[in-house]
């Protein structure tokens, strides 16, 4: 029997249809070739299902995946990925979350949980080391995320941790998230709806397993020194003091803050929704995922009449989608909307962007008032909240919103009002003023996600170094590298906030010298930066093959016409569109794909995927 370090080499497979579980072992060469986390998961997904299957059918497979550095002394080693076929986009998704749950899941002694089939009635999974139970959840079905979490902990162990869905996931709302530790979210692409379709209400995890360390002393020295370095810098860092809400000021200045469904990139109410406004009004304290030295979470409380609540958020993306994109500058309402998304279990980005899509289509006279039941205009904070709730419960017009912005806009014959790529709603960077982000949204394996290869680090935030956001030069090669680097981070089990700054060389090309060292000290593998990047490329190409088998073609590697044809009208990016036609062929060439975006036989051979 092989001894694994970092990885356990053990998978828990849960057959929900037959209510059985089994433990499988992993081949050590596979472990190394596919890194872990997101990398392992795509291999199991590809081998286990037809990529063309309906995402909400029992044929879809839902995978919870930790990486070899999840639960290790590496700073921010507290992440997991949810990997499945998305019901929102019809393509692959991999959605990341932190908090405590991923570490607790790793302590069960399994690297991956793989859910198959569909339970006849609601259930939840309780894993305590090797003791695995599928329990009835009829009595919890219908409850919101906080209450669900409390009940599951009361019924299992108060020191366990929970990942679950709320009412939105149960109703197969395509914005549904899988929430863990109540307020953290694997949010994107409707992963909560997949869980709901399987009648799986939650997963409770705890355990006593500890991962092996190939070089315990080396990791103590290097990993802990890295943690100290990150911790020391973060004491005075923007992310601790303001969290990501410092960003609206920056993107607004650059003219790329999503405003009124991306009609413009500057929002007149920005000073009411920025970091200082949040700190002055609602911030109780910064919070952190398990053992994270960065401490970027926002623990907040709102006393404003009509918007009372307490919880986590809002992050920048939530402010952009629920705030400026809806024309709303009422931070109490935005924060309340964020709490509601957490409680119903929904992605703030898809929710905000779908409502803002409806607002634009209403104002354009395309969606009649009779369909909505009342006016729904930009700036209507209470309308935004009201229709968020209707969306979660599929009530009235909310049933249309629950399908996401693309299906909504297409149902009126105007898909161009949906700000999506591969039907996934855009995050908070208008790509007309950050060209690399435009190429990323168009090519990402999961659709328009910044988490798929966030070149905004360099184009916007000056990390590792500032590059010109308005040029297309070098962007194809950079996007390929960022997609691969983020694949590495997701597969290892780390957070991007730490990794981009500390796990790669301080160079815009993100060379993973320190990440290779962390991986080798932990797993005992002999990765070099080159072989690690090649493993990421293997994973990325296998994901692309999944997309192609799901029916994706070159025509899907695109952006809404707004970004290709309508120049921004103000700010430094005025006059700019995304020159996608120029960048895309160069990107395909850099990837070793043919003119149709299909990996060549030579590329597949090189990566061991032939």
């Amino acid at each position, binding site marked *: 029997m092989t001894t694994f370090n970092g990885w356990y080499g053990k998978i828990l497979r849960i057959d929900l249809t037959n209510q059985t579980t089994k433990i499988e072992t992993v081949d050590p060469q596979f472990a190394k070739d596919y890194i872990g986390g997101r990398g392992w998961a795509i291999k199991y997904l590809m081998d286990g299902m037809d990529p063309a299957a309906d995402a909400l059918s029992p044929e879809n497979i839902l995978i919870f995946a930790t990486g070899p550095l999840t639960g290790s002394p590496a700073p921010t080693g507290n992440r997991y990925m949810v990997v499945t076929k998305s019901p929102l986009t019809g393509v692959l998704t991999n959605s990341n979350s932190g908090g405590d749950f991923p570490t607790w899941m790793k302590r069960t002694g399994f690297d991956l949980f793989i859910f198959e089939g569909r339970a006849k009635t609601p259930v939840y999974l309780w894993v305590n080391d090797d003791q695995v139970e599928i329990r009835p959840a009829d009595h919890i079905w219908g409850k919101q995320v906080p209450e669900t979490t409390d009940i599951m902990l009361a019924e299992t162990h108060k020191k366990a941790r929970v990942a679950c869905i709320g009412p939105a996931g149960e109703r197969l709302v395509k914005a549904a998230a899988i929430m863990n530790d109540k307020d953290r979210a694997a949010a994107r692409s409707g992963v909560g709806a997949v869980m709901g379709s399987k009648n799986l209400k939650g997963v409770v995890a705890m355990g006593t397993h500890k991962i092996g360390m190939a070089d315990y002393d080396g990791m103590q020295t290097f990993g802990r020194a890295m943690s100290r370095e990150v911790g020391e810098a973060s004491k*005075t*860092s*923007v*992310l601790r*003091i*303001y969290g*990501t809400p*410092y*960003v609206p*000021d*920056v*993107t607004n*200045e*650059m*003219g790329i803050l999503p405003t009124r469904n991306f009609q413009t990139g500057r929002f007149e109410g920005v000073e009411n929704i*920025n*970091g*200082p406004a949040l700190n002055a009004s609602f911030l109780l304290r910064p919070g952190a995922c398990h053992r994270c030295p*960065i401490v970027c979470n926002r623990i907040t409380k709102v006393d404003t009449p009509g918007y009372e609540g307490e919880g986590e958020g809002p*992050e*920048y*993306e939530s402010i952009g989608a629920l705030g400026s994109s809806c024309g709303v500058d009422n931070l109490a309402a935005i924060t309340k909307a964020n709490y509601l998304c957490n409680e119903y279990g929904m992605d703030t980005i898809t929710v905000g962007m779908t409502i803002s899509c409806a607002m634009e289509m209403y104002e354009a006279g395309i969606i009649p008032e009779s369909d909505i039941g009342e006016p729904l205009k930009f700036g209507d904070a209470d309308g935004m909240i009201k229709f968020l709730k209707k969306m979660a419960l599929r009530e009235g017009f909310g049933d249309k919103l629950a399908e996401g912005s693309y299906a909504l806009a297409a149902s009126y014959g105007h898909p161009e009002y949906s700000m999506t790529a591969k039907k996934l709603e855009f995050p*908070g960077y208008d790509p007309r003023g950050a060209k690399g982000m435009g190429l990323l949204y168009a090519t990402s394996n999961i659709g328009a996600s*910044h988490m798929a290869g*966030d070149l*905004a*680090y360099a184009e*916007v*935030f*000056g*990390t590792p170094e*500032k590059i*010109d*956001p*308005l040029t297309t030069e070098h962007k194809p090669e950079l996007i390929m590298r960022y997609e691969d680097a983020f694949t590495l981070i997701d597969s290892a089990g780390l957070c*991007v*906030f*730490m990794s*981009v*700054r500390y796990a790669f060389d301080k160079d815009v090309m993100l060379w993973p010298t320190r990440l290779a060292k962390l991986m080798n000290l932990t797993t005992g593998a002999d990765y070099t930066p080159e072989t690690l990047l090649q493993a990421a490329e293997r994973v990325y190409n296998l994901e692309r093959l999944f997309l192609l088998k799901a029916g994706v073609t070159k025509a899907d590697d695109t952006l809404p016409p707004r970004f290709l044809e309508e120049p921004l009208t103000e*700010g*430094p*990016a005025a006059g700019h569109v995304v020159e996608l036609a120029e960048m895309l062929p160069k990107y395909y060439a850099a990837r070793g794909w043919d003119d149709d975006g299909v990996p060549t036989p030579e590329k597949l051979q090189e990566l061991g995927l032939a």
Partner: protein
Amino acid sequence: MKVFIKLVATYREYLPPECKGKVEMDVAEGVTAVSILSSLGIPIEESVVLVDGRSPNPEETLYEGATVFAFPATAGG
């Protein structure tokens, strides 16, 4: 000539609190964004500097009415 300085996030602390990160300055012709920010004590090497929202050439001199914007280079959103 007049230029505007806009400092956000933790860089607001480089100006008196009542400024809330924004100030109008009278500066001599020929100054650069970097020279003004340096005079306020801002560590340029660790900063993102924008002039009217774009990344300036370091030697580029300011013009009447320009907005100089700065924040600490950091992780994303």
